[in-house]
């Protein structure tokens, strides 16, 4: 950090932004990676339906495909906003 740097506007730490964005998208894509191609679409449509009733963020719907000897199980979890949190997380 140089003396002159104090006079300049500080640039944002974009490396942290990149890391956080990647962490989310990579985790999301890993889950649907081995599943059928329609999973991301299904997830988006579910999100739209849920949003008709409650205001939730894009991260609210999580999809997981579990494989076992008896077949595949599609696991869905929907995180609802806490009561009192009027607007949710937006999306």
């Amino acid at each position, binding site marked *: 950090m140089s*003396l002159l740097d104090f006079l300049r506007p500080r*640039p944002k730490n974009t490396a942290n932004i*990149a890391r956080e964005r*990647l962490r989310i998208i990579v985790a999301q*894509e890993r889950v649907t990676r081995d599943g059928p191609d329609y999973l991301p679409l299904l997830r988006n449509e579910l999100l739209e339906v849920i949003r008709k009733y409650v205001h939730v963020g894009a991260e609210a719907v999580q999809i997981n495909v579990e494989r076992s000897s008896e077949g595949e199980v599609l696991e869905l979890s929907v995180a609802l906003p806490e009561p009192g949190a009027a607007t949710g997380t937006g999306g």
Partner: protein
Amino acid sequence: MTETIVITSGKGGVGKTTTSASLSAGLAQRGHKTAVIDFDVGLRNLDLIMGCERRVVYDFVNVIHGEATLKQALIRDKRHDNLYVLAASQTRDKDALTQDGVGRVLDELKQDGFDYIVCDSPAGIEKGAHLAMYFSDRAVVVVNPEVSSVRDSDRILGLLSSKTQRAEKGQGAGAQHLLLTRYNPVRVEAGEMMSVGDVEEILGIPVLGVIPESENVLAASNSGIPVIHDAGSIAGQAYADAVSRLLGEDVSMRFVDAPKKGFFKRMFGT
């Protein structure tokens, strides 16, 4: 025992061919009989980076189609007589490479006593990239510390663990390594570029090497000499370290920290 290593990435332009050239030259330098194969049918370039473009007579597809023997098509490197290049074909026929054909060529190299076969994958996830990784025992995923490259690498890692012969036979995925290229420690320190640790954490596989951004890489490709031969350059040294790690040696990571600034620079910047 032959080991087949694929150099892959998903995204183009991250340094797969540069890496294939330097790792294979490094393996040969360390005494291992090595073949390096260009899988980028239609966009042959490994020959240029290795400096043997004018000696290409027959290529990979010629061998697969039986138009030439493997012996005729292998180009012996100028610097190491235990290093051979197999050029990609310039055909526009996308189906020129077949799984059977590639398998046969690799088997013949194994019978010829090659220690390492380095497969330089094309970008993308199409047929050429699939065949380059299909027979591999190990994978080196080349990645730039940049969002699109990291995301594509993760997709490639997914394919490596399901779409290879090993995976299909239920032998599990082979070893996977990350190789970061165009790394700029000064920008990392300034928060402008993701660090080795960031990329390693997101992708979840160990780092084989970090190649710092260096003007010597372009100079090397301009001259057709793999940058590992430029022992005075930090990129060349970083590739030599990566070769050592590939051979199982424990070598500490160099060139990942920004050089310390002197008093004057710290006070007044650059």
